[in-house]
């Protein structure tokens, strides 16, 4: 209880449970096989649930798992069984929304893979070695976007604030749909 809130892993899987991007911060799953087995268990346990409007939650192997799905992308955040569930949900929401901003509202597997660099940087900005760095989606996206090689426009042509503004606009539009 005295310890800092911590995250054991962040997973982004596709609609078949395959990895898109994952990052583990704990030694609970030392080998790639252990990790894949965990991801399989996670996916099997959650795939039938409806986590598309609100983030859902369950326990798995003495861990708390919060998750949210959109299109064919499955977002997961895992923490220890004594962790504050709401903190984990905040991390998940930050991750979920930041990816939405970075992919400009086109949140699906194909777009995620085409912008895998952004996804990886995004995870890197949320948690460092298990410790939560940032949970606010806009701040995360700003940090990632300011570094990215934007597909269309080089940085000289599109300032950071502009990039972010368009990103927000995209997000807003996707929410209105």
């Amino acid at each position, binding site marked *: 209880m005295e310890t800092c809130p911590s995250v054991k892993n962040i997973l982004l899987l596709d609609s078949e449970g395959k*990895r898109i991007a994952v990052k583990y911060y704990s030694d609970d799953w030392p080998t790639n096989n252990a990790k894949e087995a965990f991801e399989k268990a996670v996916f099997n346990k959650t795939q039938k649930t409806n986590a598309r409007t609100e983030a859902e939650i*369950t326990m798995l192997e003495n861990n708390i798992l919060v998750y949210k799905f959109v299109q064919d992308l499955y977002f997961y955040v895992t923490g220890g069984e004594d962790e504050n*569930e*709401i903190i984990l949900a905040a991390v998940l929401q930050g991750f979920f929304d930041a990816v939405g901003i970075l992919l400009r509202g086109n949140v699906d597997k194909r777009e995620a893979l*085409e912008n895998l660099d952004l996804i990886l940087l995004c995870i890197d900005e949320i948690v460092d070695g298990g410790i939560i760095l940032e949970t606010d989606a806009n701040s995360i996206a700003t940090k990632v976007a300011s570094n990215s090689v934007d597909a269309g426009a080089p940085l000289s042509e599109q300032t950071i604030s502009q990039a972010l503004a368009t990103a927000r606009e995209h997000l807003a539009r996707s929410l209105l749909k």
Partner: protein
Amino acid sequence: MAQPLVKKDDDRDDEEYSPFLGIEKGAVLQEARVFNDPQLDARRCSQVITKLLYLLNQGETFTKIEATEVFFSVTKLFQSRDIGLRRMVYLMIKELSPSADEVIIVTSSLMKDMNSRTDMYRANAIRVLCRITDGTLLTQIERYLKQAIVDKNPVVASAALVSGIHLLQTNPEIVKRWSNEVQEAVQSRAALVQFHALALLHQIRQNDRLAVSKLVTSLTKGTVRSPLAQCLLIRYTSQVIRESGVNTQTGDRPFYDYLEGCLRHKAEMVIFEAARAITVLSGVTTRELTPAITVLQLFLSSSKPVLRFAAVRTLNKVAMTHPMAVTNCNIDMESLISDQNRSIATLAITTLLKTGNESSVDRLMKQITNFMSDIADEFKIVVVDAIRSLCLKFPLKYRSLMNFLSNILREEGGFEYKKAIVDSIVILIRDIPDAKESGLLHLCEFIEDCEFTYLSTQILHFLGNEGPKTSDPSKYIRYIYNRVILENATVRASAVSTLAKFGAMIDSLKPRIFILLRRCLFDNDDEVRDRATLYLNTLGGDGSVVETDKDVKEFLFGSLDIPLTNMETSLKNYIQNPSEEPFDINSVPKEVKSQPLVEKKAPGKKPTGLGAPPTGPTSTADTYERILSSIPEFTSFGKLFKSSAPVELTEAETEYAVNVVKHIFDRHVVFQYNCTNTIPEQLLENVFVIVDASEAEEFSEVGSKPLKSLPYDTPGQTFVAFEKPEGVPAVGKFSNMLRFTVKEVVDTSTGEAEDDGVEDEYQLEDFEVVAADYMVKVGVSNFRNAWESMGPDFERIDEYGLGPRESLAEAVSTVINLLGMQPCEGTEVVPSNSRSHSCLLSGLYIGNMKVLVRLSFGIDASKEVAMKLAVRSEDENVSDTIHDIVASG
């Protein structure tokens, strides 16, 4: 982005499309050569790094050579001024986690970035460098890190602080020097900087109670901005509360007001953290609980599953200790039974089962029956466990609960689920006599169609023990003999044993049983035939109605009163040291690290139901016994009776860490001092403990065994042995002084030391041998049976006034600790608000005397506690001694 963008609309329907389709490690490594181009193409380089990261992320590994090659070419990319590329380079270096000699290559580039004017460079360079650095490099960059902690850019400050938290694990002495800067950062206006700074500051000071207490005192008064930091502060506050205890004068708990204030915070995570902290306060009162329960109740009807889950999970835990406090939420909880999220529904049901009263049982069971069909096995197991507890709580309701269990036993389910049900039925049969006959029949019906060999054999074994004691044992024979005809060899063999048990116990059935057993002589399996032959011969094979000899019964069906793990260890020892002597089964120690058999409070552990003996953890007792038997001086002391848990004799984080384990023999005690030297520059030699036993009159020192040498960080033991009067629970206080010769270590890597040493000594704390040291915790599975079979011959009953106590629970746990006995059947838990409580204890007193204790407590309005103590044992002196312990305690 790894391949040129294709027009999206064209192949939208091509499901398999992936920019990484057909990606192959060799080819990507080839592509990585572009990192070496004199004219860097930043975009292309970024794409290649993404591909490399993709491969690593999919679980691909690089060989040492490949990794080194990639690492070196990646370092070339520091030439590029492209921000995006640099960001990918940072990520790549972290993923490659280079070795120490490789780190040197990038150190200067990263240090340059650490001092860059670009905030993003500074923040990331710090994180990368701290991730890959070792202690020596850290001293070089320490100056920059200190500056970064107080950097005005919050991202940079957070990066440095989080890196500090990681580095504290490996280089605590360096990070501890940063406390001034960290303290400044705690006051930062940036929310997350405050959070990270608070986490680091607390970790730096965590061993200094006073400093933590001061930190909490000052921050709970001020304004902590970030919700995350607020959550941290709540955790630290509960730690301080736990360590400081209740103010005995006013009955107020320090900082409780702060926690309660947090319940009105605007962030849900803070509200929940505070509510959770209140529910786990030790000895929490109903008045303290109420506001926390109220906010959790609001969460129960939230639209967010996460909030509902968090609330119901916390309430579920509260229900274990304070069921009454949760009853207010029952209506909200009942509506959660139909929650979409099955985890929430299961938690709601199990909570209701804990808080429910006798009258609501039937209604609840109805709701659960509908629910059971559409949840997964793992949830069903939780429900079954909860139903078992409920049945033990309301034995009168056994009929409907037993029916429920037998119904679900007939439905589809996996092994674990079926095992949980069978275990529950077995426990109910054991503890509720009225439920026995119907329970056994349910089990018989189950084995008629059971696909699990393990469960069949366990049930047959149980049937053999319980069946003969019922009013009409003959009705079970048919079910058992059906197994001999229909099942596999393992089940057949155990059915034969069960039949034989019926034959041995009930003389009138003997002729019929013998006919059946003789048929088994033609079985095609060796084991089945062997068993049948053995039983036919030992039970008197002529088939007449005679009484079976008691010795034969004992030989065939008597229980092995020795834990199997101990037996295994002893047999292994016997094989290792061959001798002429035959193996003596009486030499096997009988002590088990026993757990309460019926109800375990520990989450995640399954109660041991069927005959399976508690698989004792390969006990430390074995280790101790092995250590002690290897010391010739102590071998004459006989069999080790008990070893205490280690008692710390030094504060944490001192130069030398010492704890003591008290080993009790019939006429001796041996103190085992476990010493650890925590100073790398020292080698200790000839280490021993001078014990002053002037306050322990009945003890006289008879020998000691010094420790030759104690190098850095390698624990060693020294022993001191005392003689004491036989069988007497002698008590006393011992003060200790550690003596040794210190030698300076010349080379810390090899541990080589100077020749000359200096004698020195180190004061250790005192410890006592108390009456509880002579008592081994041994649980009994059915206290009532054990109590009755012990008989009232040596019963001693007396009443005691315990004076004003903090709470009933505190009084109960004090008496349990004083006696050092095993609480049975979960009676150590005192429901809140109760004015009286009964507690059942069992143990083994020195001289292998079984002792059972019944305690009845009562508390009045002025918190005066009275206690009635009833002891039964195998010896009147022992019964008297137990009273003496309480009277003098």
